């Protein structure tokens, strides 16, 4: 520990400070309403190509946004769903969106319905929107899987795009998708999931790539702002590490003591 701050419990000052700093930065970026520049993630090209190929083959597209409640993975999944819905409306492919899978997913479902419907309306093909193509496979993970896998086996989609907060069921989906010959594009939200999906899918959005792709596609300044703040904190992390390592290698543990303040 380097120093103690009156009124604040020892060892918790830096954590408090970092939290406050993050909140302040987010607040600043939201208030300034600036559209932060986000680079285009290569995964988006893969998604566009996959939907295009499905249209050429005359096969449907399956796209899901996870089984969780509103986390930032789900928000990313919804933004990608919106993009895919636009693409399929444009190319005239049938879009199937399995929903459900978790207790919290009930809250997300109506938002997803709205997103798909809006996309079809904006592309001028409102009549092609079919609410039955957003089936609800119960609030249980493995009933969801049964339904999801079943629909893939029946309709044999040309591509499967699975983003958002999927958990262990992601492997069932990816393997079945591959077995029915669909182009499989996935994203994983935790490391063992990502590692397994990296092997099982044709293209993978690794970790944070999915939220970044979502922010790139959305025109919501606050979503983009949060990607910027995350970047700033990653820079901060790298800077502290390099400084700390340099100091420690020279026998100085100032940085470590500062971090434990």
């Amino acid at each position, binding site marked *: 520990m380097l120093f103690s701050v009156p009124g604040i419990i020892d060892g918790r000052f830096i954590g408090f400070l970092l939290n406050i700093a993050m909140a302040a930065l987010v607040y600043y970026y939201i208030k300034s309403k600036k559209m932060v520049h986000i680079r285009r993630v290569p995964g988006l090209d893969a998604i566009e190509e996959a939907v295009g190929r499905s249209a050429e083959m005359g096969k449907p597209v399956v796209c899901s946004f996870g089984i969780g409640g509103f986390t930032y993975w789900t928000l990313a999944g919804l933004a990608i769903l919106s993009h895919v819905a636009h693409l399929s409306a444009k190319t005239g492919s049938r879009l199937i969106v399995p929903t459900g899978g978790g207790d919290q997913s009930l809250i997300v479902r109506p938002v997803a319905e709205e997103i798909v419907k809006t996309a079809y309306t904006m592309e001028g093909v409102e009549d092609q929107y079919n609410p039955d193509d957003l089936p609800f496979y119960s609030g249980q993970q493995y009933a969801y899987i049964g339904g999801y896998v079943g629909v893939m086996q029946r309709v044999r989609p040309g591509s499967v795009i699975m983003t958002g907060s999927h958990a*262990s069921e992601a492997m069932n989906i990816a*393997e079945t998708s591959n077995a029915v010959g669909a182009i499989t594009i996935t994203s994983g939200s935790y*490391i*063992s999931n990502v*590692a397994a999906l990296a092997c099982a899918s044709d293209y993978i959005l690794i970790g944070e790539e999915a939220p970044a792709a979502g922010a790139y596609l959305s025109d919501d300044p606050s979503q983009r702002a949060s990607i910027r703040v995350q970047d700033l904190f990653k820079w901060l992390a790298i800077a502290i590490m390099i400084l700390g390592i340099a100091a420690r290698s020279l026998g100085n543990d100032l940085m470590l003591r500062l971090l434990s303040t």
Partner: protein
Amino acid sequence: MAKDSGGILRWMAEYDRRYVYLALFLVMVGPLLRPIGMPISVSPDTRQYYQVLQTVQPGDKVFFTLNTEFSGYNEIQSGIIATMRVLVEKHARVCFGVAHVEATVIPDLIVKAVQAEMTANDYQYGRDYVILGYIFPNEAAVAAGAQDFHGVVTQDWLGRPIAGTFLDEIDDWEDWDMIADFTTGIATSYLVNHYALRGTPMIMNCIGVMIASEKPYLDSGILLALLQSMRGGAELEFLIGHPGPGLTAMDGFSFGHYMLIIFILVGNVGYFGYTRQQQMKVDKEAK
């Protein structure tokens, strides 16, 4: 299938995945029916776990948390039972807590598995061990329990009051001498955040899926030791000299891995052989 153009190489590259399923199933069941009892090696992480367990003193209050479904229990039961065995031999006082509804009957199974040691050490319910039910339904419950234990927990799993048991000595996180967590990842991060971060010594036995996510906690010193998957459990059984389900499963475990390695090799030979064959065919036609 193999009779098409490309023959065996093509089959090796594109065989039906159901063969994989069947082969894997058979190599796992076989050794279970006829155990061979092959030797194993012990990894440094397991040694570390064993050494931390050795520091337990008689009378220490250990929070034995089961953050697992039945499925996870099947994978790590060897570690769970071996750990419990050590704790009983050290005469620690053990309190079972559960974070998944399916795990509510597991403490009962553990107690039955180490019944002999418990009788030998004169373990009595209430004085030496207590079984709590589903006390970690969400993060708030874990956090509240860390700050005011009796504000959250009033009865054991069958509805008997816990007043009068050794839990009277527990007020908050500081009063536990150790948390032994057995996890598939359900409430583990909550225990890490609300207990271990504050300073409660915590050891963990996790399923294989969780290793990569939990290792950073071990490396940064938040966790004292990490026993990994079924293999770690078997190694622990080996170290304490009391063979159990883990060691008997290790034959099938080895064969399962070798089977997969063979499939990978076959796949690669098939892939390269077949692509080359196709390439040669194309070249020939071009000529």
